[in-house]
């Protein structure tokens, strides 16, 4: 089929079926009946993962053909296509899961009937994620899980948690990890909301006590979890660089904020505005250049910079917004929505500069993987994990 024919086919299908979803979020964590119905329709018409093989719900399309499908969906604002690029759990399963687990979970994931959360960080394993101490042991035909996870979004509603846990304590830390899909709705899994510095509670702590799962829920092989996690993390970081969490409640842009505050004629404020507006535009230009490089088949170092750039943008914008409103930033609450907004942005900027790998870890990664600088010495790399110092 020619590209034009394909484009026409997608257009015709969308014209016949797409009627909009109303105002629903499209994040990884949110779902509702209308969304499930739409994603199911997309799945049944085989538009969800067109780049995947036909036996795995796809059409075996080339990158270019898949891009056409994604473009046509985006043109009318319809979600659900291109999940071979954007659906983290489904991609992880296709890459590393066994057939039984793929058949059980992938259709539900693509139809949004099954939701997931990430069981990665622990109180004792943040930047040093390979130091996780959640324990998984095999007992007959099941795995038994014990431990504590933190910074888990969507844990209360998730059907499955993508779990990284320790399965061998006698080998060095990276070598004793395994990756699982843990059923969340069971007695051994307790979810407690975590109150954030923004006074919101998007994250949870997850306490796992003798939770169980079938042995099929192991993904990527016993003690092969680090490799699976690297793939999943790289994906998560690239998504964070492109779509940062910034303004909420439609906060005004910096120019409008300065105008409203009567500060748009202040030379210092004007210089600051130019700097932060430029930072955001430069990041967009960098991302566009990275995309063009990829499309031309040349590798790009720019991709790994997006998340670092975005955390700087968010902190700098918040700093400038605070300077613009000045003493009003002392105030809070519904009677002071501008102050509330600015103060929220100042605090929430840490979501991007800490979450998904701190700026400092990102700089290590850029230095080592992009610039080829020597790796940090790791005192715990070649000793059995049970001998590794913790605290």
């Amino acid at each position, binding site marked *: 089929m020619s590209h034009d024919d394909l484009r026409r086919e997608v257009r015709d299908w969308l014209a016949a079926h797409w009627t909009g979803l109303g105002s629903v979020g499209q994040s990884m964590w949110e779902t509702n009946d209308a969304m499930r119905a739409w994603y199911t329709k997309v799945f049944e018409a085989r538009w969800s993962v067109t780049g995947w093989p036909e036996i795995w719900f796809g059409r075996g399309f080339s990158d270019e053909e898949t891009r056409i499908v994604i473009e046509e969906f985006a043109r009318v604002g319809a979600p659900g296509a291109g999940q071979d690029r954007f659906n983290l759990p489904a991609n992880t399963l296709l890459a590393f899961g066994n057939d039984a687990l793929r058949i059980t979970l992938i259709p539900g994931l693509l139809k949004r009937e099954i939701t997931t959360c990430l069981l990665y960080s622990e109180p004792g394993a943040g930047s040093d994620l390979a130091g996780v101490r959640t324990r998984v042991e095999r007992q007959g035909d099941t795995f038994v899980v014990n431990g504590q996870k933190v910074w888990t979004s969507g844990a209360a509603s998730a059907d499955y948690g993508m779990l990284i846990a320790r399965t061998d304590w006698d080998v060095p830390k990276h070598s004793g990890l395994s990756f699982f899909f843990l059923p969340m709705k069971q007695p051994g899994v307790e979810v407690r909301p975590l109150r954030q510095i923004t006074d919101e509670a998007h994250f949870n702590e997850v306490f796992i006590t003798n939770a169980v799962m079938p042995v099929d829920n192991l993904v990527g092989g016993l003690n092969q979890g680090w490799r699976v996690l690297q793939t999943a993390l790289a994906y998560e970081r690239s998504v964070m660089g492109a779509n940062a969490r910034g303004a909420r409640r439609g906060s005004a842009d910096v120019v409008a904020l300065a105008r409203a505050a009567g500060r748009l004629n202040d030379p210092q404020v004007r210089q600051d505005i*130019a700097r932060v507006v430029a930072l955001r535009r430069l990041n967009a230009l960098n991302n566009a250049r990275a995309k063009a490089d990829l499309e031309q088949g040349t590798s790009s170092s720019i991709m790994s910079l997006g998340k670092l750039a975005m955390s700087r943008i968010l902190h700098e914008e918040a700093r400038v917004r605070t300077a613009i409103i000045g003493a009003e930033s002392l105030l809070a609450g519904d009677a002071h929505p501008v102050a509330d907004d600015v103060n929220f942005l100042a605090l929430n900027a840490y979501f991007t500069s800490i979450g998904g790998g701190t700026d400092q870890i990102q700089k290590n990664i850029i230095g080592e993987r992009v610039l080829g600088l020597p790796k940090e010495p790791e005192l715990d790399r070649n000793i059995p994990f049970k001998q590794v110092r913790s605290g």
Partner: protein
Amino acid sequence: MAITTTLEERRAIADTVRKLLADASSEKHVRAIMETPEGIDRALWSTLAALGIAGLLVPTRFGGAGLGPVELELVAEETGAALACTPFLSSSVLAAGLLTESGDEAACARLLPGIADGTTIATAALTGARGSWQAPDVTVTAADEGGTTRLSGVASYVMHAAIADVLLVIARTADGHGLFEVDPRADGVAIEALSTFDRTLRLGRITFARTPARRIGTAGWPAVEAALRLALVARAGEQAGGARRIFDMTVEYTRNRIQFGRPIGGFQAIKHMAAELLLEAESATSAARDAAQQLAQQTQGADEAIDMAAFACADAFAQIAATAIQMHGGIAFTWEHPAHLYLRRARAYSYLLGSSGSHRERFVTRIAAQPEDVRIAS
């Protein structure tokens, strides 16, 4: 203006210039040229002219290559990386740009072929002692004396003034600004070479005392602004190229320099500086290329893209060149090490053709005039 070359052709142009400059504008070469009285490498300039670089912006009917901002920017990345000592920015960009923008066919036919083949070095006197490159700063005035136009006043920060064969001068007239051609050997022209912080860059101050001058078309300040747009795109390209080169040299050094028994690039203090500078270097390249592309396509956003590239590339180059010296340590505090050549260039280019502060001010003025949805979508 438009983009008339293919991506492949542009890559070939950049590769050719890069390979040529690797030999003909090596560090050793640059150091030798910057100590000469003229400060430019005439042999290199002839070679670049033969390749079509001197006439890159000159229309083909006047003997040039007839290319535009996108090709200009790519070539500038290479000349900037190599700190090439040539009149590229003064003659081929500013002067050729002014002439092309003037719409004066006779002046173009008289001057552009020589500029394009490298035999004429032209330069532009656009600013006064304050060096703002803005209209109020022009202090040269033109007066009609018995059918002869004569210029009086002082222009400063004129690139390659001392070696120029032709001076293009902006002056105040009875009805706004006008563009004039002056023979540097004419009566009433005094050219004083200024001692420069960046020795790869030559500047002069020109005093006009009832100097005879020839009016070029009816061009006024808008022609200067148009030429400055081209020159700022070229400057941004040179800054991005220079920034990238000193950055690469610095990262290479930190891979090889051993202290405490290991390469210093393995220490987070150094590694994190390198990661931050990579973001700056890539952003500078993105900004310079975007400005060139928007100018070539004459988009609505071209002016603000150029303003942004002007301050973003200047600031990135200055930060990278300055930090590069700190990352090298003592070796880069020596005259023999090339890092200071890049810092000198970076500091000079932060003010040549206008400061970052003034470009930020222009940028804000433009975006503040837009409706919010346009501003956010940009």
